[in-house]
């Protein structure tokens, strides 16, 4: 009997063509993708690049200034110049441009594009052309408004992503602390980041264990039931985990107030970098008015 089972084909004849992934497979893949993203970010943060060598406080202040300059610029050429600067910083910091394009720019283009699209038609101005059949006017002012929105968001997002990719998360948090962001806020952010991975791993284990016991595809109702049950189990586990973490904090002397150790030392090149960021931001503010 065992022999006859082992001789049975492992692939069902009907499943030879590439079948659509089920809910569990998609979830497992998404969870693995998130973990892989985090690993990639940590690898980039460890690379020997320009941004990685700068004091995190300088990076936070400098890139934040550039984001504000981008958001307030009223000149397309200035916004494009800031985008070119972000691109140059990415190259000098060994951030793969292909990854930026697929993970950031395309996503932002679709998301912001869907918001900006109506502006092309509804902004009053000189009609350049009309949409066939619908006769909607596409105005020069509408295109300009959409372009401004798109380029601003693409540039600001790229600068923010560069900060997160080129700085270990714990240093971003410490830099926020130095910049007087309330300690409770910083600690909650840190613990959230820390335990996202524990819960992601738990969720991945749960779905993989379910996947290993499944044969065939689940129908829609069963998939929804499974998703709801998994969310419930994960919530229960996270509540238990949070209660245990609180006990572990108490056991080591926590009494409601959090203290942190800030240990940055700025080097001359950090001051130079800060000066550079400030000059570029002032230039953008002035010429982008």
């Amino acid at each position, binding site marked *: 009997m065992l022999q006859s089972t082992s001789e049975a084909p492992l692939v069902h004849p009907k499943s030879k063509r590439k079948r659509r992934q089920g809910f569990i497979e998609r979830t497992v893949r998404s969870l693995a993708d998130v973990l892989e993203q985090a690993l990639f970010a940590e690898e980039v943060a460890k690379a020997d690049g320009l941004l990685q060598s700068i004091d995190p406080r300088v990076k936070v202040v400098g890139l934040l200034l550039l984001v504000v300059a981008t958001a307030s610029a009223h000149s397309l050429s200035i916004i494009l110049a800031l985008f070119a600067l972000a691109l140059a910083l990415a190259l000098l910091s060994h951030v793969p441009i292909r990854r930026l394009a697929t993970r950031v720019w395309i996503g932002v283009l679709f998301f912001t594009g869907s918001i900006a699209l109506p502006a092309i038609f509804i902004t009053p101005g000189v009609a350049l052309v009309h949409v066939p059949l619908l006769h909607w006017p596409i105005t020069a002012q509408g295109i300009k408004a959409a372009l401004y929105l798109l380029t601003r968001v693409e540039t600001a997002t790229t600068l923010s992503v560069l900060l997160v990719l080129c700085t270990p998360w714990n240093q971003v948090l410490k830099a926020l602390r130095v910049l007087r962001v309330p300690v409770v806020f910083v600690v909650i952010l840190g613990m959230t980041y*820390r335990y996202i991975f524990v819960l992601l791993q738990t969720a991945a284990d749960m779905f993989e264990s379910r996947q290993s016991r499944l044969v065939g595809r689940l129908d829609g109702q069963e998939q929804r039931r499974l998703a709801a049950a998994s969310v419930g189990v994960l919530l229960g586990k996270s509540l238990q*985990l949070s209660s*245990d973490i609180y006990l572990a904090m108490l056991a080591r002397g926590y009494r409601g107030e959090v203290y942190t*150790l800030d240990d940055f030392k700025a080097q001359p090149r950090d001051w130079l970098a800060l000066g550079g960021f400030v000059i570029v931001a002032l230039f953008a503010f002035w010429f982008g008015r």
Partner: protein
Amino acid sequence: MSELAFDLQNIFYHYNSEVAALSDVSFSVARGARVAILGANGSGKSTLLRILDGLYFPERGQINVLGAPLTEEQLQDEEFAFRFRQRVALVFQNPDVQLFNPTVFDEIAFGPLQMRWPKAQIRERVEETLALFEITHLKNRSPHRLSGGEKKRVALASVLILDPEVLLMDEPTAALDPKSQSMVIDFLAGWAGSGKTIVTTTHDLSTVGEIADHCLIFQNGQLMAQGAPATILGDNGLLERTNLIHVHRHAHDGQGIHSHPHQHIGHAHPH
């Protein structure tokens, strides 16, 4: 100065005021002793450890720690709480519970920071502790990037930086590979030599002889027996009754099938 690290009298504890976790538990632990609390899953071991560390408080009964009564009211007092937390440390079974800081360095610095040590002293002590546990190379690593053995090492370092007099360990060798288990056992043996008190919960009988001079056996929240490891581990009837070993039947080297007491975890065969 009291000669006892712990003195428990008639301790009762219920979960949600219904399920009995500990019933009428009384025992004492001398200073400098190495005690193993044995029991199957759900026997009340972890609850007991949390009561010893002042994280849970018994509904009835009295507990004295290092000569002073330990109550919820006492722990409200900041000075008492700081002194107690510095002298008594607990290592949780699941290191992920204990490693909640962004990096290993921050994790080890957490305790001293709460004790408001001067920052220069904290940095110095953290570096020393990292070197002592041979984890300096991990100091900037996030805890989720560590292996099980490394996490256990960091968890130990994070409580021992305070140089406590008493160490409570919940299932210290659970889910560790043999090398990491051996590291933990060697550490416990060495640390106890400096006159510190160690209370360990476990259901792995193979390690008991190396980590304890005295054993307490729990079942369903009750203290069933206590004594020297050799006496306790030699009593198959007691171990079987408390679900620490079981009898099953299998063949040995072609001698036919016969039954004998057996523990799967840790490969202990007390026969």
